[in-house]
């Protein structure tokens, strides 16, 4: 490509630097400040007196919930998502694109609305019960199972897409070679296919783990406020304009994210499996 076009990237470098670093910088500064509902911008001073927020039991429980649910969701999505991605790859159906479209179609309708309708049918008296006569979910409204179900089936498509992208790139000749050399299909899968698709698993896991860890709408709606994630606390701090508290907790989440991005770049330099 013509070197002259380098100029075109300059505005984006400025844009990215400004919008990636300045908000995070602002967030860092505010997390070390006294900016809350009773303090105006002109009285801003540095303060760490609110740091005890991090050791309050409600915060610790919220962190535990977030991490626990994110881990379990990622694992279940990995198992089920890998299975679906592999079946799509194996399927004799000519047009794989249509299959993938059907997997991601639900993602095109509004997330909040989907979650709310899930919450509706998880309650004791619901519209499905009035049609088919029994409760398919039992009465799990407000429980951890409800939240887990919502999280898994909301974010699993990301896993399926990432894994499928990786699976699709595997040269069939390698699989044939493995079979020719006497491996059984299951062994072929573990020794050849799975390691080669691992990059997609990492990307998919991160794309499921992070939104689950930092989400607040799904747990709030499906647990009916019973199970508090760290995002719910940040949301509360935002509503009551306690910005220093919110910023502090967001910084902690950011540390998790930076860790994940570093992990991802170890496996995938230019983020090619991201889409």
């Amino acid at each position, binding site marked *: *490509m*013509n*070197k*002259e*076009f*380098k*100029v*075109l*990237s300059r505005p*984006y470098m400025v844009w*990215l630097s400004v*919008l*990636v670093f300045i*908000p995070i910088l*602002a967030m860092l500064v*505010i997390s070390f400040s006294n900016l809350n509902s009773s303090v105006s*911008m002109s009285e801003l001073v540095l303060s760490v007196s609110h740091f005890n927020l991090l050791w309050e039991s409600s915060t610790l429980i919220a962190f535990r919930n977030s991490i626990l649910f994110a881990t379990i969701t990622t694992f279940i999505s990995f198992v*089920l998502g890998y*299975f679906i991605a592999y079946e799509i790859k194996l399927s004799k159906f000519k047009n*794989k*694109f*249509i299959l993938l*479209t*059907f997997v991601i*179609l*639900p*993602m*095109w*309708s*509004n997330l*909040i*609305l989907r*979650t709310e*309708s899930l919450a*509706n*049918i998880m309650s004791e*008296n*619901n*519209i*499905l019960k*009035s049609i088919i006569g029994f409760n398919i979910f039992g009465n799990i409204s407000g429980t951890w199972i409800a939240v887990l*179900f919502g999280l898994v*089936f909301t974010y699993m498509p990301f896993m399926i*897409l990432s894994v499928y992208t990786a699976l699709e790139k595997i040269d069939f000749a390698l699989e044939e070679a493995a079979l020719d050399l006497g491996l059984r299909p299951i062994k072929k899968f573990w020794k050849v296919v799975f390691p080669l698709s691992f990059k997609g698993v990492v990307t998919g896991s991160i794309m499921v783990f992070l*939104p689950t860890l*930092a*989400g*607040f709408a799904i747990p709030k*709606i499906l647990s009916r406020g019973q199970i508090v994630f760290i995002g719910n606390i940040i949301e509360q701090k*935002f509503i009551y304009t306690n*910005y220093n508290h919110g*910023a502090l907790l*967001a910084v902690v*989440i*950011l540390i998790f*994210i930076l860790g994940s*991005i570093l992990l991802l770049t170890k496996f995938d330099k*230019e*983020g090619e499996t991201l*889409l």
Partner: protein
Amino acid sequence: MEKEHASIQDYGYRDFSTLNRIYQVFKKVLIVLIVLGLYISIIVIAIQSLNESRNLSDFTRLSFQWYGNILQEEELMQAIRNTFLVSSIATVLATFLGTFFAIGLYALSKKVRVFWMLLNNVPILNADIVTGFSLMLMFRLLMVIFPNIFGLFTLVMAHLFFTIPYVILSVMPKLKETDPNLMDAAMDLGVRPYKALVKVVIPAIKAGIFSGMLLALTMSIDDFAISYFNTGAGFDNLSIWIYAVIGRRNLTPSVYAFSTLLTIFTLFGLLIYQFLQRQKKGRKNEKNNFNDIRS
């Protein structure tokens, strides 16, 4: 009793056919369950949109009244208009800018490009809540100078921030695929670089631009968390409005009707797009078709 011939089992063959049959059944059941899990919410939304009663726990009678009612729901229509306004501005700008930014980034040396592509991933990978909260804090600091900044402007800025990276990620692989000699040939024939860019490079990467645009639109239209923190002055998009209303437990069934219509349109849109692609490409295999929209 002595065996006359060694059976194939003695040579290490094991019969997995029963196990395999069980697995085949298990597999089918699992697939059906997973697909149901993915679609149950959509199905329920559709059922709720067809219910005559507003009561969500009782299906009284089949009725299409909520579909006709969409236009009469003033609050819902306002939220829909806001959503489309923000998303269309953001998508058009992101597609246009993102394409040129991607070309600019591609012209950089590999080492520099890897760094900027890494930074480009930050808005995608960063959790919505952190992006939303930190942008909100920045805009709040700007409020000292511009008191009425929150609303359409902050929302469009926030949406551009996370949609441009998707366009760049879609365009970049197409740029890598294009023949580097294409540009040189155009310039040898006396075309100026920027004209060659528009006449030669852009047409070569237009599939990537199109899929980037679709991706940007999808992300923008469905966004909740980032918009939630960066809106203001009552400028609610659909997600924020629904989130606020379900707290009050009086969501109009017209929302379900609207969502169901949107799902049906999306499905048909995708199928038609796919059909047109097939017609155009003819012999190209489906792998390439898939890549066109997705990568």
